[in-house]
């Protein structure tokens, strides 16, 4: 892990190795020097980072317009809420289960619509997100508690004496999950799977004609993206201790979309910048609450005008493909 981190540093993810370790130290120190309020702000930054990373797989890597991602987030949160309150299963054990539930839902729902392109897919995913939310309001089988949602979710634990019950612990929980996700996603980006996703984004027909199983890789992106959103839902549910349909509106999906667009499609540092923007912006502009949305909109428009590729677009080129045989370069022409 450390070796991988060093490599990440060298390869320009954080500019340099020392900058990477400085950032890491800052992250560990941060909750010990600020008040609980700012720890919570950083916690929600982490939640949005995780949601951004999850949508980034679908939207950023494969270029599929998914505006219903809050639906997967909701499935994860409600899976945790219901199984924890009804059956008392510890929240951390539900973490992988929530991910699997969201992934399964994505597989079932997306299989029939995966061939749709661009705006058509976009509209269907909006519908999917809304159907999930409305279904939760309608309280099916008396499970979801209707508009009030589900109350009384436990603190995260494995059922033993280890319980996450303070802001600092929540902060570390979410950021460890974010770090592990980034680690896994970087591996995928640098592999044939990440490349296959990008080929499909660039040209679906050419990807198919080059031997990529387009349908499989699109579904894989949705399933993985949904699983990560499910993980975010699990942590979110236990942090708030209650879930209700109004946390999973179309607006949440839009925010996730903004995170990916602000940062730059397919760029992991970009997602972190986008998530920081979306989660910290309301805090910074709290004094001007009235004009908040106005400023937000203006900033978005300016960003899209002057940096259409996002704040930190993914760079391609020699950095990602160090030569296999250093020193032999340039012999052939």
């Amino acid at each position, binding site marked *: 892990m450390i070796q991988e981190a060093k490599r990440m540093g060298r390869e320009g993810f954080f500019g340099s190795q020392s900058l990477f370790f400085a950032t890491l130290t800052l992250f560990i120190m941060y909750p010990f020097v600020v008040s609980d309020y700012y720890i919570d702000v950083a916690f929600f930054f982490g939640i949005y980072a995780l949601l951004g990373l999850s949508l980034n797989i679908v939207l950023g890597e494969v270029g599929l317009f998914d505006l219903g991602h809050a639906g997967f987030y909701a499935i994860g949160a409600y899976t945790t809420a219901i199984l924890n309150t009804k059956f008392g299963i510890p929240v951390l054990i539900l973490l992988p289960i929530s991910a699997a539930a969201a992934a399964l839902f994505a597989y079932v729902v997306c299989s029939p619509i995966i061939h749709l392109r661009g705006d058509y897919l976009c509209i269907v995913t909006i519908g999917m997100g809304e159907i999930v939310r409305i279904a939760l309001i309608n309280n099916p089988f008396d499970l979801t508690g209707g508009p009030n949602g589900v109350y009384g979710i436990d603190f995260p634990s494995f059922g033993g004496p280890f319980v996450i019950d303070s802001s600092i612990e929540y902060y570390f929980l979410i950021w460890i999950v974010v770090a592990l996700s980034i680690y896994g996603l970087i*591996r995928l980006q640098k592999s*044939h799977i990440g490349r296959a996703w990008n080929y499909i984004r660039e040209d679906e*027909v050419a990807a198919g*004609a080059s*031997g990529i199983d387009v349908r499989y890789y699109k579904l894989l992106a949705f399933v993985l993206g949904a699983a990560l959103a499910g993980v975010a839902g699990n942590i979110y549910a236990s942090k708030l201790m209650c879930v209700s349909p109004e946390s999973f509106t179309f607006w949440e999906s839009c925010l996730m979309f903004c995170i990916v667009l602000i940062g730059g499609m397919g760029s992991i540092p970009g997602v972190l910048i986008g998530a920081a923007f979306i989660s910290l912006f309301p805090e910074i502009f709290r004094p001007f609450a009235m004009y908040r949305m106005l400023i937000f909109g203006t900033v978005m428009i300016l960003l899209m005008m002057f940096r259409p590729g996002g704040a930190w677009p993914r760079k391609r*080129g020699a950095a990602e493909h160090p030569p296999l045989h250093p020193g032999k370069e340039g012999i052939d022409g």
Partner: protein
Amino acid sequence: MADSALRSSHPVVLETQNLTKMFGGLTAVNAFDAQVHRGEICSIIGPNGAGKTTVFNAVTGIYTPEKGRIVFNGNDITGHKPHHIVAAGIARTFQNIRLFPTMTCMENIMAGHHCRISSGLWGTLFRSSGQKREEEETRSIAESRIRQVRLWDYRHELARNIAYGSQRMVEIARALATDPTLLVLDEPSSGLNPRETEELMEFLTGLIKEEDITILLIEHDMNVVMGISDWVIVMDEGRKIAEGGPDQIYHNPRVIEAYLGSDDRQAHQE
């Protein structure tokens, strides 16, 4: 291989039987029968709208034909998905180059080897030894292909930033990286200048000599068709109207009438 007796001594790689493709009321390809033999360069020619590209799209799995069969190396591949057909050994290029524009030339060519990779999600996440080996292999195959098309110096350039002629060669290299038995080229010389066309012809004839590969191409440039083809199939209005060695085709009155035209013939003789 110009005479048909010698040609038939080579095994058939690709065969279409009664291939028919309709778009609504329009029959784009009508009962098309053709055979491509191993180790030859076979050209399909014909006026615009004759159905050449439709045949290609049916062979490579982009369209499913209404009627007929496509047999490749003895296996029926009619209606298979494009990626299955690539894995079976047919690789193609497009008339209007279709690269992955914002990815590097290396990454573009690496796409070709994808169908030979067997590691899955978990192997990739946990970086299994098999996955590492396959990744190295993908890279070294792409490197040897990019050397072969003489674009080594451009390997880290984005595909959209290199010259049109070079993009064409990257597309061919991507197809070759799939390790194909049959290379299907849709108008490879379109948009190339005479020198680039010359180089392309040399490249293709060299390829046939060095590798166990068969080439099927659509071409409009008669110098290319007559210069490198072993066998020529002429299409018009969705049907095959003639086939034969380049010389036979060149003197076939039906072909001249349908396609070449008398002026063209004169130009060629000069």
